[in-house]
């Protein structure tokens, strides 16, 4: 790339709530600076400008739920030097991946007046299930400070500094009292990747896993502990089946418990 040319940034949306790309617009203090450092080539939520690829960096929000989107992500990959997925939908399939555990045809017949109008895959899957991904940023939604770090690192061709350790480490560092030890509150913190900013335990609430599984999580041990706290098998299954239900470690642990 010519030294004078600004890198081309594209922001793409698939099945999602828009919250992760909104995180970029929520960088109120940095937005204009970021916009000055890159050429925003495609960002439908913010601009009607559309500049053709190839793109230096593509940020991808959302999961793949239709045949059309499965084809679209491959084209975007072909056009992108670096492809970074942002948020639980893009990295794990999102909350809509709960349909992976059910009969989707049944849904459609049961609930739509005209099922033939609906074009949907049986599953909601992560972007990396379809194309190669250069970096995955977790969270439902992503942490905007982490988003800026990933963007900065990617533009400067270095590895983003995003810890892969557990939420427990964050609580210890922040001096937050353990909600499980102190109050017997079930918490997914031991198996969940840090990054939210130590939110739920700080509000006396158990972590609900919106940043997905940490590296090598011992979910079986946590599930056993939850059972000892009196959590039913069904509630254990459902605790793992939320915004990252289709992330492998959470999916397996959820499947290990009877959801009835």
């Amino acid at each position, binding site marked *: 790339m010519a030294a004078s040319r600004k890198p081309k940034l594209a922001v793409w949306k698939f*099945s999602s*709530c828009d*919250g992760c790309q909104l995180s970029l617009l929520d960088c109120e203090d940095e937005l204009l600076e970021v916009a000055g450092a890159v050429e925003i080539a495609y960002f439908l939520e913010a601009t009607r400008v559309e500049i053709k690829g190839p793109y230096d960096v593509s940020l991808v929000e959302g999961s793949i739920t239709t045949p059309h989107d499965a084809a679209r992500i491959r084209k975007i990959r072909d056009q992108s030097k670096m492809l970074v997925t942002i948020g639980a939908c893009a990295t794990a399939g999102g909350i809509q991946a709960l349909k992976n555990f059910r009969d989707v045809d049944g849904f459609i017949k049961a609930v739509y007046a005209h099922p033939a109008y609906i074009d949907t895959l049986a599953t909601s899957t992560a972007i990396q299930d379809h194309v190669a991904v250069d970096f995955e940023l977790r969270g439902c939604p992503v942490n905007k400070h982490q988003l800026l770090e990933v963007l900065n690192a990617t533009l400067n061709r270095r590895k983003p500094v995003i810890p892969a350790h557990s939420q427990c480490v964050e609580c210890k560092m922040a001096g937050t009292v353990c909600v499980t030890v102190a109050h017997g509150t079930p918490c997914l913190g031991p198996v969940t990747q840090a990054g939210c900013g130590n939110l739920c335990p700080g509000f006396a609430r158990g972590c609900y896993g919106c940043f997905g599984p940490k590296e090598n999580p011992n979910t079986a041990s946590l599930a056993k502990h939850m059972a000892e706290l009196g959590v039913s098998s069904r509630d254990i299954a459902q605790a793992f089946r939320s915004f990252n239900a289709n992330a492998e470690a959470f999916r397996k642990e959820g499947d290990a418990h009877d959801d009835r």
Partner: protein
Amino acid sequence: MTIAETASRTIKVDALARVEGEGALTVRVKDGVITDVKFRIFEPPRFFEALLKGRPYGDAPDITSRICGICPVAYIAGASQAMEDALGVDIGEGIRKLRRLMYCGEWVESHVLHAYLLHAPDFLGMEDALQIAKVHPELVERGLQLKKLGNRILEVIGGRAIHPVNTKVGGFYKSPRKAEVRELIEPLKRAVDESLATVKVFAGLEFPDYEHDYTFVALHHDEDYAIERGRLISNRGLDIPVAAFEEHFDEEHVRHSNALHGVMTDGSGPYMVGPLARYALNHAQLSPLARQAAYDAGLGPVERNPFKSIVVRAVETLYAFEEALKLAESYEELAVPAPPITPGAGRGHGCTEAPRGLCWHRYDLDGEGRITHARIVPPTAQNQKQIERDLWGVVQANLHLPDEQLKWRCEQAIRNYDPCISCATHFLTLTVERA
């Protein structure tokens, strides 16, 4: 040959920019007569109502908040209310007011985002707010700072701006510290002034000449500008409790949209929810300052030009800041942040004014308090049919414009509604067959 005489024209926007979610527009004109207008929603369905089946009642606020990253509090508040209704929970005034304060933060964040960053460019002939920032940096900077304060309210009370974590059925996990809420007071005072200035700026925009005699529907409460409580009223005499919604409103499933179209069951057709409807129906409940600002901006007590919705949003932003200031000043920490709840069977309804209009919920629970049935009617689905009707009118009035300008005007007309397409696309458990 003028453009209007051209035998056949098609105005197409394949992927609409500066809206939340994926939508498209097609307008067909033949021999100067509009033959078809379709505002298409192709955001893939996400099946929320079906996914909720079997989940404990307490999961509904967190799960439904993921319908929309721009207005999660609307879903959190509506789902919580419905569960409190089903389980007979009285949250009391302190919790209600804290929820309202949080909701004011969302109104600000969403309205400012839309008015400054998404809608204003249409009026200024620019592609986006970044272009505005090159010419009027102070304007965009003001918008960003106001939005940031809206988000700050959400963070102080809810932990984070997008998908807050401190909320639950019944109230909150933890009462925010009084000192932190108090820290909002000085910035809020400044924001009241800044948002007053915003109303003036937007009042000076040039508005396309178009009016429609809308059926307006909104929540109404005698004591305040309705956000999180009230009865459903319209300018055609409707006055019902939220539980009676389904007797008066229906949704149709049409081929070109993954969202369902809202209609009134009395045959009067489409209706409008959102800022214009609230402003028309609850004008008397606005603060004196907001009412005066609206008057000075040239708005009557009822505004029927949808392009002026950007001014109404600015007036509502001003009101939301004033209201937030009042609530922050009187805030006392809650001794009990959420009353104890006994799970059980029941049916409950919830309805609040999301920034873009009415958002209605109904849930049925089994004996363990698990969801057996859910129905959510988001604002953009209700407005979709009215959006199409506006497009007919706007295109008809602007057939003389060349295609590019007509397309621009159509996009602007859609953005009048601040459509949240992510919200509108969902899966209903109601089936309506129509011959």
